Each structure stands twice: as structure tokens, then as C-alpha cells.
């Protein structure tokens, strides 16, 4: 469950392959570095501090001195293929575009007003000692990654619907032992695609809100309400739900799960979203699972932990071929750290599942937290390495 509501992002953003970077900055380019260039964009001008640079990591500091929003492009010599671009530079702002450029002829363009051909000029990247390889055409890999991830989300959603159907049947029938057994198993499918599910800002609070997350006046429904009813031991003076109440909440959860499943059928993804989703799932682990806050009543946090890691790993492996081309060291490091985290999680396996969170010692929680940090840090650079 997200603690702050964010607008749905899935399926909205499209990024051109080849965009490497850009950012806000107010510092003049370094005069001593031939790879740092100043660009001044005005209503009728696009002035670069140099017309050439040695091959390597180039930084264009683009300052918008015009009165309209501008863009800056580095184009291939054909003037068509976009090598890198930086958009949405407001009047008065300076943004950096960082791009790894091999030797060759290029065209630069400022686009004040974000329309038309732009103000163009030739630009040369001269040979240098730096080992620079151009990023290839990843379109096939990108399409494959997007298709695979959509299929994964649909599959998990279908299993979630199936297991939730069984779970609410057991719960409403008063078969509490069986319901308790199925609870963490069913929720795995939610946790594996949690970042996607959360992007539906209307469904997430109805399905996955914890009692402590509720806003004044918000009615509590969903998984965690049922969790508390099944594991009331830590709740002082808890009044169990009646049969009728159980039915109401069970029907509500199932209906929302059906809605979720309907919606994911139409979702499409981009590789940076998949990559950011991978990081997002690890963020979920860091904020809610490793601290034992998510499953306060059932203490099944490690099941959720594992499911978040599963989902993050699938997302990473989906974009791995692209990242291996762009940044092999990063890809290797992430893969190794997934392994290390999984090895640590395996130590807490109990049969098909996991030991209860309250059986972990402080040292064991710290070791898990260290491993999450170790993985999350390179994972935070994954999205940038996919484009």
C-alpha cells in the first residue's frame, strides 16, 4: 500500500530510445573540459560554446534565454535519428543533457516553442582514447520486454483473482484455519505486481490499506481488515466480525480484485516503467516489509518480502538484455545482488513459506536490510540504463 497517493503512471509515458539524460543545473559549463559544452537557446538562436568535442561522455548545459519552452536535440548526421534529447526546458532554466557519443558527424537542434525543425547546426565528435560504443537499435528487445512484462502482470492478476475467490469462500464459511493458511499464499500475487496494482489510486486504498494508513473518515476495507479478524491476538478488546460483516468485506475485496484484473488486460508498458517498477518493489520491501509493518497481525511479512523480490526480479530480467548492452557492469551487479538477497531470504524459509516476522532477531533483520540497500542502490540506476 502506498502511503501517499500518486497519479497512475502506467501506460502513459513514452520515451524515445536513445535519450540518455538531462537535468536541471545552474552552473556554467566547465571551461577546462572539452566534453562540457554550453548551449544557449533563444527565440532565433542556438549557440554552442564549441562545434566539436572529443568522443566520450558529453555534457551539454542547455540554457533557455528565450521566452518559450525549448528543447535540445543531438541528432545523427542524417538529421533524423535522435541520439539524445532534453525536453521541457522552461524560460530561464538550465538543464544538462549527458550523452555518450562516439566519433562521428552530428546535428544539434534547439527547438524554442517545441515545434518545427528547430534551429540546426552541424556538430562533430572527434576521435579520442575513450572506449565508446554506440547504443544499437534495441527496438526488438524493447518490444519483447514490454510484451513479456504485460503477460506476467496478467498471469499474476489471474492467479490473484483465483486465489482470492478461494480465500473469501473459506473466510465467509468460517473455515478460519484454512483461510489463514491461504492468506499469505494468495497475497503473493498482489505483492509481485504491487507497483502496477498501486497505480490504480482508487483500488489500492480499498484493497491494501493498513489500519494505521486510514485518513479521517475513510472506511477500512480489504486484505488487512480481514487479516486482523483472522489474527486478533495483538488487538486489545477486539470484537470479531459477524458472519454478515464477513460476507460484506469478502464480497467487496473480490469485486475490487475482479476490477483490477479487468483493468490490467489493457495495460501497456515501457521499459523504463518496468525498470522503475523493479526499483519500486524493492522500495516497498524497504519501507514496509523489512520493518514488519505490512502484516502487523499475521506476521507473514516475509511472504510479501519474497513476492516483492520475485516481481522485482522478473521486471529486471525482462529488461536485462537491454541493460547488458548499455551497462554490463550494472547488469551483473544487480543480478549478483538479487542472488545474495535471495540466499538470505532462503535462510528463513519454513516449508513452502517463511517463518513469522517476530521470530527474526534484530541482527537478522539488519542483514536483510543491508542486502535490500545493496540491491536497491544499483537498481535505482536501472531505468536510466534501459533508455
Amino acid at each position, binding site marked *: 500500500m502506498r502511503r501517499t497517493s500518486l497519479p497512475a503512471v502506467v501506460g502513459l509515458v513514452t520515451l524515445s530510445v536513445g*535519450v540518455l*539524460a538531462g*537535468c536541471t*543545473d545552474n552552473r556554467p559549463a566547465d571551461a577546462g573540459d572539452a566534453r562540457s559544452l554550453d548551449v544557449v537557446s533563444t527565440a532565433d538562436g542556438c549557440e554552442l560554446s564549441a562545434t566539436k568535442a572529443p568522443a566520450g561522455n558529453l555534457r551539454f548545459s542547455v540554457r533557455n534565454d528565450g521566452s518559450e519552452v525549448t528543447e535540445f536535440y543531438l541528432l545523427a548526421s542524417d538529421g533524423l535519428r535522435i541520439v539524445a534529447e532534453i525536453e521541457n526546458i522552461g524560460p530561464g532554466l538550465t538543464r544538462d543533457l549527458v550523452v555518450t557519443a562516439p566519433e562521428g558527424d552530428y546535428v544539434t537542434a534547439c527547438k524554442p516553442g517545441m515545434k518545427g525543425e528547430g534551429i540546426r547546426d552541424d556538430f562533430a565528435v572527434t576521435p579520442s582514447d575513450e572506449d565508446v560504443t554506440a547504443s544499437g537499435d534495441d527496438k526488438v528487445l524493447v518490444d519483447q520486454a514490454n510484451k513479456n512484462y504485460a503477460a506476467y502482470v496478467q498471469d499474476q492478476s489471474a492467479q490473484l483473482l483465483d486465489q482470492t475467490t478461494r480465500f473469501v469462500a473459506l473466510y465467509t464459511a468460517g473455515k478460519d484455519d484454512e483461510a489463514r493458511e491461504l492468506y499469505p499464499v494468495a497475497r503473493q500475487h498482489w505483492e509481485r505486481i504491487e507497483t502496477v496494482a498501486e497505480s490504480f489510486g482508487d483500488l489500492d486504498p480499498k484493497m491494501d490499506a493498513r489500519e494505521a494508513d486510514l485518513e479521517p473518515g475513510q472506511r477500512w476495507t480489504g486484505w488487512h481488515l480481514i487479516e486482523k479478524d483472522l489474527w486478533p491476538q495483538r488487538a486489545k478488546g477486539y470484537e470479531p466480525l459477524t458472519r454478515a460483516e464477513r460476507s460484506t468485506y469478502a464480497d467487496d475485496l473480490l469485486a475490487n480484485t475482479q476490477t483490477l484484473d479487468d483493468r490490467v488486460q489493457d495495460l501497456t508498458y515501457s521499459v523504463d516503467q518496468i525498470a522503475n517498477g523493479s526499483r519500486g518493489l524493492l522500495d516497498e520491501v524497504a519501507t514496509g516489509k523489512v520493518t514488519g509493518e505490512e502484516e502487523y497481525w499475521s506476521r507473514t511479512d516475509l511472504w510479501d518480502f519474497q513476492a516483492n523480490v520475485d516481481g522485482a526480479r522478473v521486471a529486471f530480467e525482462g529488461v536485462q538484455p537491454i541493460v547488458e548492452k548499455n551497462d554490463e557492469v550494472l547488469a551483473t*551487479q544487480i543480478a549478483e545482488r538479487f542472488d545474495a538477497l535471495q540466499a538470505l531470504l532462503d535462510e528463513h524459509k519454513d516449508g513452502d513459506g517463511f517463518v513469522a516476522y517476530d521470530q527474526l532477531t534484530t541482527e537478522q533483520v539488519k*542483514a536483510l536490510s*543491508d542486502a535490500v540497500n*545493496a540491491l536497491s542502490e544499483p537498481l535505482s*540506476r536501472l531505468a536510466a540504463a534501459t533508455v
Partner: protein
Amino acid sequence: MGEERRGISRRGLIGGGAALGVGAAAVGFGAGRATAVETERAGAAAAYSLYGAHQPGIVTPVQDRLHFATFDVTTDSRAALVDMLRAWTDAAARMMHGDGAGPSGPTSGDYDAPPDDTGEAIDLPPSRLTLTFGFGASLFDDRFGLSGRRPAALDPLPHFPGDNLRPERSEGDLCVQACADDPQVAVHAIRNLARIGFGTVGMRWSQLGFGKTSTTIRDEATPRNLFGFKDGTMNVKSDDRDALADHVWVGEDADQPWMAGGSYLVARRITMTIETWDRQSLREQERVVGRTKSEGAPLSGGVERDQPDFERAGREGKPLVDPAAHVRIAHPDHNGGVQMLRRGYNLVDGSSDIGRMDAGLFFLAYVVDPTTHFVPVQMRLSTLDDMQEYVQHTGSGLFAIPPGVRRGEYVGQGLFSA
């Protein structure tokens, strides 16, 4: 991209754009001095160099603020550890210079990736930041093939009477001392080093200090600790070469050659029960310390920097400096002449669950050998010093501080090279 590549230079920003390459304007002291002030610039804009015969942050004039952290290595890979030390060295050189932790800096680099610096030090001057790195005894086990390189002086400190050490505030495979005149600059340094270390090390504990309690400069007024007394009057001074050679720097004849030019750091988190202390009469407070509260003069007379006369008696023949006074128990004359270079900090970590201030002193002392220069002194203090009534040691760490870094090397390289 090498270490020379810079992002935003904070020093450049505040210094009117006169940014210089890393160490480009180093005004070196004579050989044997630990640090070189990079520029003549005074005050907050001043920056120290990472490079030199000794690490910075030892004889460097004590800055106002501290963030000290220890880390445990979380990998078994020696290569990964060395890579991280290299990355720490590069980042330390940049940050001490006033630049970001990484080559791109806090507001540049790839727009779709997190910046390689966290940004809270943007627009802050270098603030005389120093970063000092050390190795704890636990690093010298079988994990990294270092067991044969463990100096004898890293033997664990004994239990001292009254110790109440908490493991989560003690020891660690590595330590980093960040000192700066601005607390945000010190915290920024530790935060960014921790971030670089993820996957190789995890933070074990850390401690903030908000006010220096010692000076290593002769002309500087002696600062006060939370007992309200001047502390460190007798401290080793940075221009006293003989004292540094005898009491602080490890010599060429060290049992482990990689430690030559290094030192040993003893860190002790000392809790003060200040509420009780504050109820003592001025007479009692001065008796316990052995000095006047106003000027810090020894109770035997004179001014602050005068040596105490432990024999001088008053009425009824009682010595003016009490037999159990802190200054008497700790004085070099009663400890075989040993001295420590202290650079401790006052601390207040909020309050306890029963409403007492969690206050005290984070004691940091650099010595040539803790077995001769710390253990016997602390044993005397723990058993004889009346000040023990008001303090409790709640954390402890002992670290080997390798010598200074030469350009192109990484900190502690001698330990890892054949």
C-alpha cells in the same frame, strides 16, 4: 572519468568562481605534516587536502562538528572491499574540496537516474571538512586474508570497571570520522560514503557531536565540555613534533609495516549524568576536576596552562589538588609520561525515556599504541577518578588508522598490497 573530473564546486561558488582543480593550489606544509591547507582562504571557505604523509583529521585544527560512523563489511569479496575503498577515497577527495561525492554532482548526470550526490551540501562551503578512515580488529579475520596483517596494538580493549558498553554502539570493521565546521557538511559526507558502500558495507552505528571539547592549536581558547569545564588543556598540540612522534604517529619500526605513519584511534561514548552533576556545589565540581571552573587553572594555583603542583598543600596539610581529582589521575606525570591527542565532541542524543538528557562526551583520542597510551590511563581513571561517579562508558571502538594517502592511491592501500 578520473578524480579530476568535477561537478559543482561549492568552493568555486562561494569563492567567486575561482574554482581550482583538486589540490591544484595546495600550499604544502613541510614534510611530516599531516595536511596541507589548499588555499590561503580563511574561515568556512578553507578546504583541506586528503593527501599527505598522515591522514587529515588528526592534527588538523579541530572543527566544530562531528559525524562519526562505523561500518561492517557485508561481502566476503576482498576485491569488492578494495574497490569500495578506492571509491571512498575518490569521493572523500572531492567532498573535502567542496565538490559533490560523484563526478556529476547533485544536479547533473543522467536525468533518469538518481544523482551521484545527495545534494544537501549544495551552496555550503567546504567547511574545513576532513575524512579520516580506520580499520577495526574484526576486519582482520579470515574473510579477506588479512589475519596475518593485524597489528598487535589492535588487541581488544579490556573491560574497565564501570563500563556499560552496548554492542550496537561499539566496534566495527571500518570507521570514518567526518569533522567540519558545518554539521550538514559532516553528515552529507557520511551519508554519501554510506551510499557508495551499500552492498559492500552496512552502517553499524554512528554518532553526531555538536561541539568540540579539545583543541590542537596552542593559541586557541580551550573549549568546554558539558560539565562546563575546559577540556583538553594538556592536549598534544599539532606543532609539537616531538610529542606527535612519541605519542601519536606509528613509527617505521611498527610490527606491521603498513601502519608506519598511521595512528590508533580510541573512540568512547561517555554518557554524563548531567542532572546529578549540576546539583554539586562549585567546591565539589572543582574538587572532582582539579581545576577552577572559570579559567581552568589548576587548583594548586597559576593560570590554565601552568602545570599543576600536586604536592602543594593547604590547610591541615591536604593537597590542593585532591588525590582523586581527574587532573591528577589523568596527568602524564602519573601515567609514565604518556599523552594522547584528543579531539572529542560534546553530544546530546535527545533524552531518555525517563526524561533525562542523553548527554555526554564522544571521546576520540589518537595514540601511538593503545596498550601503552590508553589502557593503563583508562584503568586508573575507572578505578581512582572521582569523576567516574558522573560518567558511564556506553560505547567503544578501537581502530587502526593507516597513514596518509598519496595521489593515485586509495586509503589503506598498504594493508592490501603484497
